[in-house]
Every structure is written in structure tokens, then in C-alpha cells.
């Protein structure tokens, strides 16, 4: 199959996967927001105008991950990017996979703060603006893993890889896409859990707003660490030049490194998000011990991340030692 056909084929499949997977998360997240908004309106119909506005704003932020996926899909279909040869096919497919998977978690996660903010405003209309601000901050931070996936996708599309040998670099590029894309699922979802808990807690105890926001930001930042490891492995796979190989073991090792770090980031991301959710919820109820709670949250998150560290070690061994 000649390179041009192969490239077009890979670009089309990549675009399809990209928007196909990318549409899942945001839709479910926005649905959750709307469901909670309905419950909120039924509890407090008088402020339904504010609730409606808040729901739309929250849904718009949750949509952003899918919009990134749509942009990448359209770029894959219609824009002629530099580079040529069969290796470009691998790069474009990797880009589609990266953004496609990466948008799932962030979309799902950003639904939580929107929904909880609507419920919170129904419960406590006086803190409405504070809740909306917190919802926006929390959702924006939980979009970060999707942003990482988009960065990797853009780099895979616009960097010229044709000077690298085809075998094994094709596997490195697909692995780079998988690594960030899959690892972003867990971190996006986990970050969203923490943001949702913070909105709920501020509504229950408005005086604790500052501490709760701080704890939420720190918890989300640590929950994003698995996706950062995925980004690191992706960068290494994209920028390291591999010697040409004729056997199958070298490309499979690189593809496997990407799969390993990608899947390895899902679980710890979700787990860290659950920890942050618990800590944020209880910081609001027991604000004098906020320092202790943050410390136990960080210790617990650090231990829960250990499997992500194992996965990163195995990935790095696969890249550098094999």
C-alpha cells in the first residue's frame, strides 16, 4: 500500500476514533449535570432562572474536552500536515487515539462539579456566585488531562517524523498516543470527583470556602500525577530516536510501553480522586483539622499512586533497557 493511501486511511480511522470516543465522556457528564439541575429546580423553583444559567455554564465547561476532540478530528481529516511516508500514518493514528481516549475522563469528571453546584445553589442561594466560581475553577483544572492529550495529539500531527526509521518508530508513535490518552481517563474522572465534593461542601458550610478550595486544588493536582507520568512517557517515545530494527520485538516493546503506562494511569487517577473527594468533604465539616486532613490525603494519595509508579518503571524499562 503506498504511503499516501496509508496516511489517508490512518487519518480517517484516527479521526473517527477521536471524536467517537471523545463524545462519550462529555455527554455523560453533561447529562449528570442536567439531572442534578432538575432535582435542584424541583427543590427550589423560585430561583430556577439562576439554576438554569448555572447548568448551562457547567455543561459548557464539560463540553470543552469533546470540542478539543472535534477540532483534532477535523484537523486530521482536512489539514495537510508536514511529513510524509508511512510513518506519518502511525503518527496520525496515534494522535486520534490520544485525543479520543483523553477526552473521556475529563468530560465525565467535569459533570460532577456542575451538578453539585446546581444542587448547592438550590440549597443555599446566597453563596450562588461563590459556588459558580468554584465550579468553574474545579472543572477547568479537571480539564487539564484532556489538554495534555490534545498537546500530544498536536505534536504527533505537526512534528516531522520522516527522518526516523519506520521500524520501530511506528510503534513508538502509537504508543505515545495510547500512553497519554488512556492515562488521562482516570485523572480527569478523579479530578472531577474532587471538584464535585468541593461544590457540595461549600454549599453545606459556606464559611469553609477558602480551605475547601485550597484542598480541592491540591488534591486535584496530585490526582493528575498519573496523567503527567503518561505525558512524560509520551514525550520520551516521541523525542527519542530509536535505531532501525528489522525484528518484531523492538516495536512491540515500545507499543507495550505505551499500553502499560496508559492503562496504568487509569486506576490510580480514579483512586486519588476518591481520596481527594473524601478529604474535601470532611475538611468542610471539621475545619480546625484541615491541616491533618490534607496531610492524610497526601499520604494516602502517594501510596495509591504506587501502581502508577510501577507502570512507569516498567514502561521506562521497556523503552530504555530492551
Amino acid at each position: 500500500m503506498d504511503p499516501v493511501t496509508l496516511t489517508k486511511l490512518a487519518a480517517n480511522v484516527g479521526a473517527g476514533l477521536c471524536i467517537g470516543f471523545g463524545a462519550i465522556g462529555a455527554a455523560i457528564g453533561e447529562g449528570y449535570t442536567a439531572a442534578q439541575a432538575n432535582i435542584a429546580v424541583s427543590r427550589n423553583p423560585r430561583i430556577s432562572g439562576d439554576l438554569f444559567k448555572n447548568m448551562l455554564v457547567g455543561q459548557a465547561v464539560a463540553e470543552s474536552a469533546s470540542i478539543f476532540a472535534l477540532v483534532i478530528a477535523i484537523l486530521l481529516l482536512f489539514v495537510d500536515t508536514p511529513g510524509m511516508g508511512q510513518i506519518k500514518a502511525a503518527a496520525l493514528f496515534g494522535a486520534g487515539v490520544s485525543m479520543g481516549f483523553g477526552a473521556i475522563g475529563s468530560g465525565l469528571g467535569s459533570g460532577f462539579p456542575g451538578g453539585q453546584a446546581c444542587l448547592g445553589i438550590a440549597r443555599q442561594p446566597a453563596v450562588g456566585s461563590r459556588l459558580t466560581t468554584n465550579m468553574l475553577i474545579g472543572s477547568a483544572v479537571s480539564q487539564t488531562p484532556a489538554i495534555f492529550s490534545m498537546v500530544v495529539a498536536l505534536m504527533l500531527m505537526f512534528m516531522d517524523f520522516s527522518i526516523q526509521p519506520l521500524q520501530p518508530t511506528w510503534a513508538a508513535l502509537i504508543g505515545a498516543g495510547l500512553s497519554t490518552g488512556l492515562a488521562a481517563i482516570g485523572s480527569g474522572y478523579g479530578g472531577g470527583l474532587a471538584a464535585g465534593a468541593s461544590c457540595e461542601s461549600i454549599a453545606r458550610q459556606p464559611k469553609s470556602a477558602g480551605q475547601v478550595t485550597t484542598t480541592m486544588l491540591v488534591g486535584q493536582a496530585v490526582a493528575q500525577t498519573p496523567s503527567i507520568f503518561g505525558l512524560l512517557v509520551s514525550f520520551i517515545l516521541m523525542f527519542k530516536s530509536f535505531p532501525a530494527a528489522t525484528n518484531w520485538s523492538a516495536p512491540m516493546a515500545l507499543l507495550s510501553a505505551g499500553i502499560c503506562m496508559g492503562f496504568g494511569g487509569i486506576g490510580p487517577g480514579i483512586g486519588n480522586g476518591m481520596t481527594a473527594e473524601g478529604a474535601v468533604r470532611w475538611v468542610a465539616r471539621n475545619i480546625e483539622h484541615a491541616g491533618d486532613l490534607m496531610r492524610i490525603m497526601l499520604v494516602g494519595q502517594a501510596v495509591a499512586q504506587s501502581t502508577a509508579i510501577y507502570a512507569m518503571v516498567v514502561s521506562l524499562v521497556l523503552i530504555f533497557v530492551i
Partner: protein
Amino acid sequence: MENLGQVHQLVVSLFGFNLVFNLEAILMTWIVFGFLLFFGILTTRKRDFVPQKFQIVGEMIVGQFYQLTEDALDREGAEKYGPMICSLFLFMLLSNWLGIIPHLEEPTKDLNTPLALGLMGFVVAHYAGIKSKGFKAYSREYFQPMFFMMPLNVIGEMAKIVSISFRLFGNIMGGSIIILVVSHLTYSLLLPPLLNAFFGLFVGTIQAFVFTMLTVVYISVQIK
């Protein structure tokens, strides 16, 4: 667009080793230093008990961060580490905001800057830990909760540096790449400045705050 990965470098041969200087990052860091010095001089020019304009801004920022440090580290900790934490935050904030000015780019876009800041925080935290607990108690911590967990604990500590630096680097460099690609593809006048405002100002502020908070928390975990 083609020079996405290119960086102007100055290679100096010294004693047989090649020292590589990334020119853009160094120059931009000096510009940030200049801004910080200028801001500092403006704030402390006439120190009155009833504060004037710039002094109010300065007192607000410094007060907030001393409060944050005091919450995590108690009074003596705040005295010792407050200045470092405050300067860390201001440096990172201005570095992340530098991209707004045309023709200037953020020094945190080069991996070396966040990595250096992360290493500095790591060294300060562990030095504080050793000084306050003594070397024996400090090294015993690595063997908790099971004896064979030692290599995993050490790797975990290294992973903290990687995560904190790469988070800042990924967010800032990612933002600048997205702005670059969008400006290349669209001819809109409105979209790139909006994106610049979001990624540069908003994300930059949050990431600087998160980095600082995590450094404070790492120090407090070691001291405890």
C-alpha cells in the same frame, strides 16, 4: 510551525565538557528578575504605617502567603520558609504571565526551569526534615511500613519531583503549543487573545499556586 522543537542554544566547551545554555529561557528569566526587582522597589520606596498604593498590593500578596505557610508550618516555620515560598510564587506567577507580552515567552516553557524549582523545593524539604528529626529518624521513615518498601519509597520521592515539575511544564508548554497551532490555522483576531488569557493568565495562576502549595505541604510532611 516547523521549528516546534527547536531551541536556540549556546554550547560552550569547558574542560572537555560541553555546557549548553538555552538562551531564550535565560534571557526571559532575567526579564522576570527585572520585573520583580522593579515591583519590589516600587512597593518599599516609602514605607508608611498607613499603606499607599503599591504597598497595599505588596502587603496583600505577602500577607496571604505568610498566612498559608503559617497554617501548614506554625509560626517558626512561617518565619523560616515564608520568604522562600512567597518569592517562589511571585517568580512563577510572573514567569507564566510573561507569555502575554508579544515577542516574549515564558521561561517555564523550558523544562529546565520547572525542574530546577522542583529540585530546590525537594532539597529544602528534605534538608528541613533531616535537621528537625535527625538523620536516623529521617532514614527510618523510608522503611515504613514494611522493610522491603525502601526502594519503592525512594522512587516515590523522586516521582514527587517529576510530577511537580512536569505538571507546571506540561500546562505552560501545552498552552503555548495550542495557541501557536490555533494562530497558524485561523485568521481570527479574537480567538488567540482569548486563548492566551485562559492558558496564560488563568492556568498560569492556578499552576503557580498549586506548585507553591505542594512545596509547602512537602516541607510540612517532612518536618512533622
